[in-house]
C-alpha cells in the first residue's frame, strides 16, 4: 500500500485557507457594523440615552476596567458561572452515563428530565431567589440548572453511540468491565460530552446573569440593571461588552479543551 500524497496536499491548502479566512472577515465585518452603528446614531439624531455612540461605549468600558468594583462584579459572575457549570458537569456526566447504561433508570427518569427541560427555567428564577436568597447561591443554582440538561443528553447520546464493532473487539479481547469503560466507552463518548460542555458553559453564563438581574446586589447582571436604571446607557453597553467577552473566553476555553482531549475527532478541526 502507498499513501496518497496528492489529495493530502490539496486538503492542506484548504485547511490553511479555512484557518486564515475568519481572521480577515471577522474584523472587517465588525468594523462595518460599528461604522453603520455610528453613522446611524450621528445622522438620525438618536439620543445617547437610547443608543450611545460606539466611541462612548469604548470609553465607558475602559473606565470600567479601571474600576475595582466592576472587577468585583465580574468575579461574582465568573464564580457563579463556573460553580454552576462545575455542578452541572459532574451531575450531568455521571447521570448521563448511568441513564445510557441502565434502561430502567432512563425510563424512570425520562419524564422528569423532559419536564425540567420544557419548563421555562428562567421563569423559575424568582422562585430560586425566594428559596436560596439574594446571595450567590441562587445564581449558582440557576446556572447549574440551565447548563445541566445539554450536558446530560449529550453524554447519554455519546455513551449510546458507541460502535458495536468496537465493543466486539473488546469482548473478543476479554476486556474487564473497567477496561471497556476506560479504553472504549469514555474516549468514545468524550467528543459528545465536550459538545455538551460547550453548550452548557454558555447557558451557565446566561443562568448566572439572569439570576443577578432578578435579585441581589452583585454580579454583572446586577451591574447592567443598575446602569440601566441610572440611564447610564453607555456604561450599560460597556457591561454588555464585558459579559460577551466573558462568554467568548469560556467558550474558547472549552474549544481548547476539545483540541487537547480529542485531537483525533473531526470536531477538533483540521490538523495542520
Amino acid at each position, binding site marked *: 500500500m502507498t499513501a496518497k500524497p496528492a489529495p493530502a496536499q490539496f486538503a492542506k491548502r484548504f485547511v490553511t485557507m479555512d484557518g486564515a479566512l475568519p481572521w480577515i472577515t471577522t474584523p472587517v465585518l465588525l468594523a462595518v457594523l460599528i461604522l453603520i452603528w455610528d453613522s446611524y446614531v450621528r445622522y438620525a439624531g438618536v439620543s445617547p440615552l437610547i443608543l450611545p455612540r460606539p466611541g462612548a461605549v469604548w470609553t465607558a468600558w475602559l473606565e470600567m476596567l479601571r474600576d475595582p468594583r466592576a472587577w468585583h462584579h465580574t468575579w461574582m459572575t465568573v464564580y457563579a458561572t463556573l460553580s454552576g457549570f462545575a455542578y452541572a458537569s459532574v451531575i450531568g456526566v455521571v447521570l448521563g452515563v448511568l441513564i445510557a447504561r441502565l434502561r430502567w433508570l432512563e425510563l424512570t427518569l425520562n419524564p422528569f428530565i423532559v419536564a425540567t427541560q420544557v419548563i421555562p427555567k428562567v421563569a423559575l428564577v424568582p422562585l430560586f431567589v425566594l428559596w436560596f436568597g439574594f446571595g450567590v447561591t441562587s445564581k449558582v443554582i440557576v446556572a447549574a440548572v440551565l447548563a445541566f440538561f445539554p450536558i446530560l443528553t449529550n453524554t447519554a447520546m455519546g455513551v449510546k453511540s458507541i460502535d458495536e464493532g468496537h465493543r466486539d473487539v473488546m469482548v473478543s479481547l476479554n476486556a474487564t468491565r473497567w477496561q471497556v469503560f476506560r479504553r472504549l466507552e469514555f474516549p468514545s463518548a468524550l467528543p459528545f460530552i465536550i459538545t455538551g460542555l460547550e453548550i452548557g458553559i454558555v447557558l451557565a453564563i446566561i443562568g448566572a446573569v439572569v439570576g443577578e438581574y432578578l435579585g441581589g446586589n452583585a454580579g454583572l447582571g446586577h451591574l447592567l440593571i443598575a446602569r440601566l436604571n441610572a440611564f447610564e446607557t453607555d456604561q450599560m453597553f460597556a457591561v454588555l461588552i464585558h459579559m460577551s467577552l466573558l462568554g467568548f473566553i469560556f467558550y474558547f476555553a472549552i474549544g481548547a479543551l476539545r483540541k487537547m482531549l480529542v485531537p483525533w*475527532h473531526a470536531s477538533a478541526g483540521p490538523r495542520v
Partner: protein
Amino acid sequence: MQAAHTETQPAIAFQAVEKWYGTRDEPVHALAATDLAVADGEFLVLLGPSGCGKTTLLRMIGGLIAPTSGEIAIEGHSLWRNGQRQAEALSDLGMVFQEANLFPWLSIEQNIALPLELKGAPKADRAARAQALAKLVGIQGFEKRWPRELSGGMRQRAAIARALSYDPRILLMDEPFGALDAMTREAMNIELQRIWMETRKTIVLVTHSIAEAVFLADRILLLSPRPGRVDMEVQVPFARPRGPDLQSTPEFQAIVRQLRHRLNEIS
C-alpha cells in the same frame, strides 16, 4: 470427532454445537448440531450465502456468541464453563472483523498494541511488538498516524496486526476484505497468504466470495441456510505460495464451478 487428549489434538473442536436465536414463539435455527475439527496450522474457509450461519459459527469459535448446546474446545481448552468464557481458550484466539474497528482515538501503533495494553504488558515491549507487527503486515512508517489517515486496506492490515499482537495460535476472520475494492482485496489475499505462511497460524476465514475461498483455503466448508449446517466439504490441493495466475488455471476454475453449482442449488 477427536477427543481433547489424543495426539493430534485439533486447534478447534466442535461437538454437536447448535445455536437457536430469537424468542420461544419465533425461534430461528441458526446452526444445526455441528461437529467440526480444524487442524493446527490449517487454513479453513467457511463459504455460504447470507443467512447460512457462517458468521454465527465463527463468532461462536471466537466466544462472542454462546452456543445453545454442545461443546467448543480451543487448543484442548473448553471455551465455556458455567456460562463463563474461559481466558485460557480466549488467549489462543485473535479476531479480525469485516470493519477494521480500529479505535479512532488511538494511533495505529497504540491500536496494534491495545490487546497487550489490556494484558498489562510494559510500554517498551508494546511499542517494539507493534513496530514488528506493522512491518509484518506491511504498514511500517504509519505507526504514529491516526486510523482515519489510512486507506481501508491499510486499516485492515492494522486490524490483522492487532489480532496477532498477543501471538494467538488461531486467527478468526469474518469477511475481513468484504469492505474493500476488488483490486485491494486481491492484493490483501496474497498478503494474507504470506502472513499465514510466515506465522503458521491456524486461520478460519468467513467469506461469500468463491474465488477468495478457493484461493486461500486448504479446505472449504460450504454452509447452507435454514438451518445453517455444513453442506459440502472441499479440499483445495494447490501448492503454496499461490500466485494470482492460479485463478486462471482450469483446475482452479473447476473447483470454483463445483462450488458455484452447489451454491446455486442451496440458496
